[in-house]
């Protein structure tokens, strides 16, 4: 589903050159729930940015869903993000002037869905993330956990091939973090949704099928694990 070969991302030049990603090879299969872990500055967010088409690699190739995304122009990359990727940011990144429902159906509207369809899909997806009663709430009227669930709903609305989550629990307390992780795990399990999630919290490990550990821009370990049941 995702094949990255010799992915490099270098910032700066000469003596100030920083190799954020240093020849990463990665393969992600459909339906996996992958945790990308490592210390701050290890390159995990940079990898997620490349997978999310928010940044371009300095070298290497990246193929997502059989598309060599390095060859896409900006407009094509935007369309690719809209149709095939869902991205969840650390700080929710909702439009403060839009209600929960409007934030969610914005990407669908861009795809040309009618208002009636948008409303139906949004209500379904808000039910899925447990926020049916928050349809017309503005982000400022919701808790951090609720906002992040809206952000997840927004990322899922176009039924993306991959859900990318960049430390989605970083701004949440343990209880809300647990809710979010359980939600993402449930989506992965029930919808066979491929998920790549960046985290630096050790206790998150139990939710992942596979853990990629990074250090200094390189993958140090990449191992599948037998999940203990985190939902119990």
């Amino acid at each position, binding site marked *: 589903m995702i094949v990255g070969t010799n992915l490099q991302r270098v910032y700066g030049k000469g003596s100030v050159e920083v190799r954020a990603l240093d020849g990463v090879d990665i393969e992600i299969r459909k339906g996996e729930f992958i945790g990308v872990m490592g210390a701050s500055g290890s390159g995990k967010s940079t990898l997620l940015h490349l997978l999310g088409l*928010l*940044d371009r690699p300095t070298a290497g190739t990246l193929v997502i869903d059989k598309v060599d995304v390095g060859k896409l122009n900006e407009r094509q990359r935007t*369309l690719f993000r809209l149709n095939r990727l869902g991205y969840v940011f650390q700080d929710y990144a909702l439009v403060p*002037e839009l209600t929960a429902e409007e934030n969610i159906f914005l*990407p669908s509207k*861009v795809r*040309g869905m009618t208002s009636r369809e948008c409303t139906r899909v949004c209500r379904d997806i808000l039910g899925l993330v447990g926020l049916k009663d928050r349809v017309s709430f*503005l982000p400022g009227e919701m808790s951090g956990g609720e906002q992040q669930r809206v952000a997840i709903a*927004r990322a899922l609305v176009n039924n993306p091939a991959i859900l990318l989550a960049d430390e989605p629990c970083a701004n949440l307390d343990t209880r809300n973090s647990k809710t979010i992780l359980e939600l993402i795990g449930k989506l992965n399990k029930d919808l066979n949704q491929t998920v790549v999630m960046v985290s630096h919290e050790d206790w998150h490990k139990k939710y992942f099928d596979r853990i990629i550990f990074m250090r200094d821009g390189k993958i140090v370990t990449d191992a599948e694990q037998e999940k203990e049941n985190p939902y119990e």
Partner: protein
Amino acid sequence: MFEEEKVAFFLASRLITRGNKGTLLLTIMIIAMVFVNLIFLPSIIAGIVVLFNQQSIDYSYGNLVIEPRENQLVITNVEELRQKINRVPGVVATAPRYTSAATIVNKGKSTTPLLIAISPDDEKQVLKIHTKIISGDYLNDGDTGQILIGKTLAGNKDQKVDRTPTLGGVEVGKTVEVTFNNGVTRQYRIKGIIESNSFGVDSNAFITRKELESVLGTKDTANQILVRTKTTGNEDAMRITLMQYGIQEKIWTWQDKSADFLTSIVGSFDIINVISTIVSLVIAVVVIFIVIFINTVYRRKQIGILQAIGIDRSIIIKSYIFQALFIFASGTVAGCALLFMLLQYLTASPLVFPGGPVAPVLEMMLVVRAIASLLIVSLIAGFLPSWLTTREDILSAIRG
């Protein structure tokens, strides 16, 4: 069809209705003020020009001025010519005049104004000087030994106040001595003083044609016949009509006669107008640009996020253009309301200028020009910052 525009409009409408109302209101008021600023001064200048034009017609020339034929100094058989002119369709009235220079002396103070001999009753049909008597009375057709003088010519007792040679504050009932071109000197009692606020009138003196003819020993002569027509604005056509009716004298329109004076005044005001318009526009550009630019920069992160979730930059740019258009439209409507109130007030209480009261004149072209200028500025101010922000890479925008 128009899917992008629909989404852009949806985004813009939500950002406007749920954004900061105070900032929005302030921005709209700024645009309204800029709009008023773009129109107000030019409309006052247009009012001044209208005032000068009207003064030329009402106090100096009427609509047309007939003057002696080529190589002739005076018009003879004035009554016959007037009858001919009065028969021309569109002509309301005519008034013969004989203008000459004369020296007027009052208690040793001497000045040489234009002395205009008029037929008072006819003059009333063409000009409105008779309505501007501030002291004493207007002349009658049979008056002899009486003179009417302009306020500027009469002057002030304290001559330091006067900027031109005057008669030192002469009053109604006093006698002045007039020496004509032919050397004849006569005493005249001041019958009235005129104040029309038109310099060309208020610095003149007037006697009856009957009186002048007795001085010059002429009869039925004039060097001007003023013509009042039914409508103002078709003087060129009326001139042609008069020529077609066989009038062989020189025919001038009031615009021809006041051309130098009006051209220099209008020219000066045009320069002021152009400078003021440019300054107003620059202020408009800067203000609108800054307001929308700050708004866009403030939402830089949001723009990055919208791009990250797959919203095309063209949709984002269009949403900012829609916002700018909304601000422009609201500002223009508010500006129109402000302007309307201002014009109502100034029409009821006109500004008092040296030439008289000036009411602003709102020309449609001026409003259209102001609206078009603001529209273009708003479009640029909506487009440029959002275009610049969406051009930078998504991660930089998201990081703020």
